């Protein structure tokens, strides 16, 4: 069948699907954003439900981590370096943006690698990078440490809140349930390799499809998952970037500097073995990441239920009322990858 015709068939079938309800979860914030940007929900039968899982690092960061960053940013001679969208996330009292308005030294960077040059240029300032992320980003932090050691830099540390995918996916399946298929995160898989998700599919008996980020790729992935419902199985539809074993150099580099740990997730509590922390021998590069477990949820905020797909964002009592992108209570509304933000922006109701 010609490609265009096949795509048309897929689009028709997804629109007219009238079988049992299929609940599909994406666990990558960039997938969440791409699904919204492409207007995919409006193309699906009401019997196909897309649920945004805990895949946006900004959204799953607990308030204790933000509070620590705020505290550091207000410390003399200290500069907190961060990615853009973490700046607006509120801790128990304030966000880094609020702290900046009070005179804190906070700087937004495109790449953690830039912190090396900054630390060299300004030896009198202590830099702390807000190291959040999943398997895709952890290797970047490993490179930062490697360069810092190589160049004998002593004024750069990481405050880590690093997460890993498989444990939280298991947690979602065991605690929320009702997921018929997972869109596996393409860029995590580019680093870890497809094996991680193949194994999970087998272990959980739920189908996983690794997807790229174009609209057509996502449609085909959703179509595949609808067909695979109840049968389990695994497909890699992003072979261009995702190989069986992934980036082994990156994995080794991560393993050299980091080790597996328990980690606290916003609204979900501590999940055993779901994080990465710096190994003991590299602790001098840690800015105090241990024990940051407290998670101060604003009253009424249902981030925890949204993050695991128990409720849709619009079922949260605060959604669109007191919680909007302009005045976000929960992290899901702050990040442009957050599920509440995306529902709000794209009318995905």
């Amino acid at each position, binding site marked *: 069948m010609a490609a265009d015709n096949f795509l048309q068939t897929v689009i028709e079938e997804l629109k007219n699907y009238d079988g049992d309800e299929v609940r599909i979860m994406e666990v990558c914030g960039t997938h969440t954003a791409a699904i919204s*940007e492409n*207007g995919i929900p409006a193309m699906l039968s009401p019997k196909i439900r897309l649920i945004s899982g805990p895949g946006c690092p900004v959204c799953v960061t607990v308030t204790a981590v933000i509070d620590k960053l705020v505290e550091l940013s207000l410390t003399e001679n200290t500069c907190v370096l961060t990615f*853009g969208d973490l700046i607006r996330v509120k801790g128990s009292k304030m966000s880094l943006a609020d702290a900046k308005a009070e005179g804190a030294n906070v700087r937004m960077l495109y790449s953690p690698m*830039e912190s090396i040059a900054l630390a060299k240029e300004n030896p009198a300032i202590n830099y702390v990078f807000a190291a959040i992320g999943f398997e895709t980003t952890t290797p970047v932090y490993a490179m930062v440490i490697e360069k810092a050691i190589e160049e004998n830099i002593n004024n750069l540390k990481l405050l880590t809140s690093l997460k890993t995918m498989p444990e939280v996916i298991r947690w979602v399946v065991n605690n929320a349930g009702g997921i018929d298929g997972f869109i596996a995160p393409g860029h995590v898989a580019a680093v870890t390799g497809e094996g991680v998700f193949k194994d999970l599919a087998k272990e959980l008996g739920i189908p996983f499809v690794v997807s790229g980020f174009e*609209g057509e790729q996502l449609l085909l992935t959703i179509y595949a998952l609808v067909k695979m419902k109840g049968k389990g199985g695994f497909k890699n539809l992003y072979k261009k970037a995702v190989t069986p074993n992934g980036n082994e150099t990156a994995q080794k580099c991560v393993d050299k500097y980091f080790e597996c740990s328990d980690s606290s997730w916003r609204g979900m509590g501590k999940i055993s073995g779901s994080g990465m922390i710096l190994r003991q021998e590299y602790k001098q590069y840690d800015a105090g990441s241990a024990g940051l477990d407290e998670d101060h949820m604003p009253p009424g905020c249902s981030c925890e239920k949204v993050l695991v797909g128990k409720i849709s964002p619009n079922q949260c009592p605060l959604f669109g009322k007191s919680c909007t992108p302009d005045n976000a209570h929960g992290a899901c509304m702050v990040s442009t*990858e957050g599920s509440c933000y995306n529902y709000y922006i794209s009318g995905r109701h």
Partner: protein
Amino acid sequence: MRITMAHGSGGESTSKLISEVFAKHFNNEYLSKLEDSAVVPGAGKLAVTTDSFVVTPLEFPGGDIGRLCVCGTVNDLLMSGAVPKYITCGCILEEGLDIDLLDRVIASMAETAKEAGVVVVTGDTKVIENRGGEGGLIINTSGVGFIPDDLDVPGPFKLMDGDKIIISGNLGDHHAAILGKRMGIESNILSDNAPLSEMVKKLMDGGVRVHAMRDVTRGGLGTVLNEFSEASKCSIELVETELPVSAAVKDFCGILGLDPMYMGNEGKMVLSVHKDDAEKALLLIKQSRYGENAKVIGSVSKADIDGGDRGVFVRTKIGGKRVVGPMYGEGLPRIC
């Protein structure tokens, strides 16, 4: 030479700076008198606007703060249907500012004013203490324009059922040029800062029924169209494949996780025109300077509004439909 506190003293250094930089470039019959106020010929209905410019860096790919402030002020006047006539130039100089840089910026401002057909009739300079760094520059410009007596002034509340939405060129160039410079991403992307005088004049002279027009600045196209939709109680549907974005800006947005729909411009406008005039309007804009990439990107509907379809929508490339909300927050680069 750099700006010192003496340049703000009101004494000899101030006079010298004014004559050697400002009066030199702005040389015209009103300003050159250096009186407390400029006295200028007037008209019946006036449009008055003011805007402050705090952009860094002061010189950026495709423009500088001087060109930018004239474009911003002139375009604001044009969007109200006015013919821009006079602008003012209030400069706050930070101690340490390189005078050669100031000279280039003011020369650029004068040149842009000439292009846009306005006269810089009065100005002011003040010097503030250095706040750490190279020495910055903030410019405030006010502008006055004449509104033709017989003009039916366009407004965001005047959109009509069936109107066509036209954008005068590519989205996001200014934002990408500035942000790229700040984030260390090199590119050939140039700011689009430009006065829209020529295309607006052509549209007005051509009798095009323009129901609303707005320059697309901070907040981007998404924010402007939401204002239109809200004020006129209508839905606006855009066609994604028609939205003009250069390949470079598209990838720039991809690197930082930004959406061209919310990227700022400084030389683009969006119009809602009567559907029968759309073709003519497009042609006139395309024939004007800075209008070569203009496109009809969507249409207005007032039907089914009770069904809750008010708002701005995009028909996506793959046939989906999404809502475009106004921009929230600062539009920060997204990375993870």
